[in-house]
């Protein structure tokens, strides 16, 4: 199963903000984390993460800093800002609403899905 482009785009911001809420990180590690969390199903081309991070930085949701770990190469680290945390909380409320609506529209868990709806989903 591949997740559609629009859905990936919509989910990207809350996912990245959520990962940064776990602690500061850098691009490659964020992508690794997304792959691990989604079992490889939520993916986009690696480069696209960076314009997104830059946008979040411009909006003030994250702060960034170039840093060189001892023995490592320089990396640009991103950290969630206070404003970013507020945005994340807000997004979380929105997604919760959507999630609960979808849960009610599609009754039953994924295990006892009704045939009619399974068909409808293709």
């Amino acid at each position, binding site marked *: 199963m591949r997740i559609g482009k629009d859905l990936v785009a919509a989910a990207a911001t809350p996912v990245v903000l959520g990962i940064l809420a776990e602690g500061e990180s*850098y*691009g*490659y590690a964020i992508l690794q984390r997304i792959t691990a969390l989604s079992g490889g199903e939520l993916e*986009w*081309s*690696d*480069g*696209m993460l*960076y*314009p997104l991070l*830059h*946008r979040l930085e*411009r909006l003030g949701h994250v702060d960034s800093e*170039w840093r060189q770990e001892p023995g490592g*190469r*320089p*990396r*640009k680290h991103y950290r969630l800002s206070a404003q970013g945390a507020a945005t994340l909380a807000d997004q979380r409320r929105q997604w919760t609403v959507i999630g609960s609506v979808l849960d009610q529209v599609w009754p039953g868990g994924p295990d006892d899905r009704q045939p009619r709806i399974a068909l409808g989903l293709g």
Partner: protein
Amino acid sequence: MSTDPTQSLDELIASWRDWMERRDALSTADIDELESHLRDRVDALAGAGLADDEAFLIGVKRLGSMDELSREYAVEHSGRLWKQLVLDDGAAEGADATGATIPVRLRANGLAVALALGVGAGVALKATELLAGPDVVFRNIAVIVLPFLAAWFAWRRRPPVATLIGVAAAFVLVGLALNLYPFDGGSSTVTVAMQDSATAVLATIGSVVALWLVTGIVDAGGAWRSDRTRMDFIRFSGEWLVYYVLIAIVGGALSGLTVAVFASIQVDVMPFVGEWVLPCGAAGAVLVAAWLVGAKQRVIENIAPVLTKVFTPLFTLMMLALVVAAVLQWNLVDGSRELLIAFDLVLVVAVGLLVYAVSAREPALPPGWFDRLQVVMLAAALVVDVIVLAAMLARTGEFGFSANKTASLGLNLILLANLAWAAWLQVGFVRRRVPFGRVERWQTGYLPVYLGWAAILVFLFPPVFGFA
């Protein structure tokens, strides 16, 4: 797809960086970040047992299509594309031919040299005016200002000494002719242009054109026989004119604003602005515009060809309307003496539209609608001009051969010859019989003809027409 196994990972990444740096939307810091990512990815893949070059290929592939990526960066950093045009001169140091011939250190402080030369031009202009009077300045405008432009080119291109000596000799010769010929009138008057004799005005115009082209020889670094450097100078001239006009408009507006603001507190700065700021600014702007063209060469799309694309259709419509009007009314024949001068301007515009369209055209592309439109434009211009020429020549006896009339007739014939052959080549090109290179070479090859006619205006016209 495979890469040369002898290349190390660092070499591969260096060439990848080279490629990425050509994208305007990506800054060096962005590429650093992507490189750091790429190296992490390569390390992980190499750890899983892949060879470095294989890991590199996969890493690059996973970064995504470069076009999409740079588009995504451009969306996020749209301001950056614009800012680069104005501020970031580093971006001008590209990897193409001209960039390679100019060392970076020359670019970095190029502005300082251009400004110094601009100030020099302004001072020279003002000093001549104070020492010799305004009419001398007017007649010698090219001899006073253009050496500074030539010096700027000389500084940038480092042409051979022989070229510089030749160009200097041309400046001296023109200067001598303009000042030693005993022109009628023009002396001891303040209102300049109108008081000069016709031959003096023609010689002035000729000197501007001739010395501009001679200055181009310095810009070409002495390689003035090459089609490529000639075309580069044509491009330079078009861009320079656009920048100069822009500077003039803004400078004029600012001067007006200054005068108005000071007038509101009862201080009259009009004389100061009129006698010092405008002349010095006009001379200095020649150098600033030249610097701008060089600095922005690879950052901004050339403007002159864009204007050409916009105005060629309109100009073609105008010419066709004129043909119809001329045929219906048949009164071009009764036109006044100014008609010929007006038609010189029409032909100059036609040649300009043609040349700048040629200068921006990708030679390898097959002929398209724009090339066909140019055929129509050229044909219309030729038809109208032949009608006018026939009428004027038929009535030569009535008007006589004054200096003005001979000069404009000569220019008309020169441009007509250019356009006639250019139209022939263009038709051939549209029918795919003639390669585009010949269309281009015809225009660059024609430059010496203009130079020759301008030189005739400067050196031969005054004695032939008795300095009247």
